């Protein structure tokens, strides 16, 4: 079946295209992009008021399968992704058991096989995520791992991190680090600042992130390995990345929508849906992240989609698990609070969700090149939406964005030429 996206503003960061174009899709691939295409036999969608982009990629999600299916499964996670405008996700290995070997990798891929949304698994850096011995990276790479990470935990030992950065060079994939000196964090649950002092909650000092980011960059420089900083949240972290990139060190980083649009002040009131790791930071940090987003320091926006069932979150603040979901809120929240408010322009936003993450993970994705798979996200930047957590496709509803109003949202998600979500 043919599909014709007519008269849309087509943004393709890979080719630098940003113009009114028609996009013809045939046999699941991009067949033609031109100022005007006539295809009487194609199903035609009028995109005159819409923006046509390569399909969005979320390089940091937690799908909880195997082991914690009450929070999310590959099936419900993929449904959430499609509804949120994402055509592909990279899922972190902190499942139960953790994804530290081929059998778990294959289990996840088997669950993902029937999904339209692409699921790229990330394997553990170390066996059992214990931070001691390297996991079988080669075997997992052959089985489809796109990166390695002990996410949720840092690779604490500098020696193990050094070896991981060296060994992963064989496969050319990055080590993704959750940068947290947990000894220094010492049980902190909220950013250490005036808010933690007011609330009487243990502080999670930004310097505990800064230290690990700096260490990782130094080790990447020393070893020539590739490190990707997960969910950078502090001003210093992005400063270090900026300097590292300038010095041609192989470092990349991602940032979450929530760290870009919220600060620790949101925690006043003890809402556990404002509790995540790393925590919401200060206004100074948020401003620095926004600057780094605009100046190219940050490679990707990633949600760190971390589902928890509501009764798990409905407890005393310090006892609640860290994490919020993000797949179904990222696009409207960012379009409204970052693009509409002028922090970044629309092409840069698209880049951060397409070529950015694809580049970090070496994925041959994120472009509208002729012949490429027809994975497409269509946006309506003028449409106003109200976020309703109870209407999510995700199994969980742990979001601080419930009730937020946004102008701009994804309206159509196309994967392999097939419309998997349509909000028009």
């Amino acid at each position: 079946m043919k599909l014709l996206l007519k008269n849309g503003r087509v943004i393709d960061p890979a080719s630098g295209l940003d113009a009114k174009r028609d996009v013809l899709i045939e046999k699941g691939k991009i067949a033609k992009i031109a100022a005007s295409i006539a295809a009487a036999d194609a199903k035609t969608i009028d995109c005159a008021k819409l923006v046509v982009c390569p399909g969005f990629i979320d390089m940091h999600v937690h799908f909880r399968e195997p082991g914690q299916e009450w929070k999310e499964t590959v099936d419900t996670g993929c449904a959430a992704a499609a509804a949120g405008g994402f055509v592909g996700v990279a899922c972190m290995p902190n499942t139960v058991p953790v994804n530290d070997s081929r059998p778990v990798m294959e289990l996840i891929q088997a669950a993902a096989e029937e999904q339209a949304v692409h699921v790229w698994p990330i394997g553990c850096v170390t066996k059992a995520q214990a931070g001691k011995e390297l996991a079988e990276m080669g075997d997992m790479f052959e089985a489809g791992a796109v990166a390695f990470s002990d996410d949720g935990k840092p690779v604490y030992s500098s020696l193990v991190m050094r070896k991981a950065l060296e060994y992963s060079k064989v496969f050319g994939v990055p080590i993704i680090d959750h940068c947290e000196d947990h000894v220094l964090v010492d049980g902190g649950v909220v950013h250490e600042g005036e808010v933690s002092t007011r609330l009487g909650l243990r502080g999670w000092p930004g310097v505990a992130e800064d230290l690990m980011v700096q260490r990782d960059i130094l080790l990447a420089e020393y070893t020539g390995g590739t490190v990707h900083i997960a969910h950078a949240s502090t001003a210093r972290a992005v400063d270090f990345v900026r300097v590292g990139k300038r010095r041609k060190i192989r470092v990349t980083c991602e940032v979450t929508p929530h760290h870009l649009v919220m600060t620790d002040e949101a925690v006043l009131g003890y809402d556990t849906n404002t509790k995540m790791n790393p925590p919401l930071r200060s206004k100074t940090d948020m401003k620095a992240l926004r600057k780094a987003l605009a100046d190219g320091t940050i490679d990707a926006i990633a949600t760190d989609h971390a589902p928890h069932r509501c009764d798990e979150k409905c407890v005393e603040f310090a006892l609640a698990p860290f994490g919020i979901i993000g797949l179904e809120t990222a696009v409207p929240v960012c379009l409204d609070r970052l693009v509409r408010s002028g922090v970044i322009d629309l092409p840069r936003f698209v880049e951060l969700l397409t070529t950015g993450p694809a580049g970090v993970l070496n994925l041959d994705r994120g472009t509208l090149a002729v012949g490429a798979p027809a994975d497409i996200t269509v946006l309506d930047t003028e449409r106003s939406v109200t976020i309703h957590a109870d209407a999510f496709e995700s199994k969980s509803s742990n979001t601080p964005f419930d009730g937020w109003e946004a102008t701009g949202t994804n309206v159509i998600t196309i994967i392999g030429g097939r419309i998997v979500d349509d909000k028009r």
Partner: protein
Amino acid sequence: MRLRSSHLLGIDGMEPDEISLILETAEGFAEIGTREIKKVPTLRGKTVINFFVENSTRTRSSFELAEKRLSADALNFSASTSSFSKGETLLDTLQNLEAMSPDFIVMRHSQPGAPHFLARHANCSIVNAGDGAHEHPTQALLDAYTIRQSKGGFDGLKVTILGDILNSRVARSNVYLLTTMGAQVTVCGPPTLLPFAIERLGCRVTHEIDKALAGADVVMCLRIQRERMESGAFPSLREYAALFGVNARRFELAEKDAIVMHPGPMNRGVEITSDVADGERSVILDQVTNGVAVRMAVLYLLTGETSEAAA
């Protein structure tokens, strides 16, 4: 006038007139404690559950006495005797307690924000009897009552709070209350026991006890817990006492008519020496006495009553 909320969760956010209302109402109730028959029918037929998920002797006894003197029916429910220790969530416990139609739940909990969490889900009035390192509003109110008793007011009063500010709910509630009422508060302790940016709560900060004590009208000592030493906040109790303990010589630096306070329990010889704690300027036991009257006032006012109708 009336209190603006049906809960007492913290001092942060309370208006000066609300604080004054509680203190003035407590004055009326204090007299009841001096009578031969220490009981009035004010809260007859009301049910109060004292829900203590953390050990407490002083605060729980004080609340219980306050409830009994007001003729309320008081029920004590503590963590060790409850299903709480069997893994029931706080929300489930609350819903079970509420199914028995209490009018008040007085809660002590080790987790900051636990009473706020309860208040979001409860139909009855929640009184915070201390939540972790966050707030202990009735303690600050009884401290304020005691200060007012001997100093007459708060405006321009110099109050020094000494010790483990980091882990202290008493310190936070007192900083909020005293600065709201116009006092000048200085906190002092080793930097390892001061929370980040505490000065943004409106107090001054120093690490030198002599400076902290100079010219103080009120000196408030906080308990130093042995566990803090074990976590590396200071090298030894001996060194702590030498650098930050209040003794008779140091207390001389304060104003001639300065009072010394302690929320208890005291570590004699650590944060305060016995000669100061038992001296004539100590109001430590007055604090305990006043606690009952202040808690009577709080419970009474939370029913929505006005100050005029009290006692």
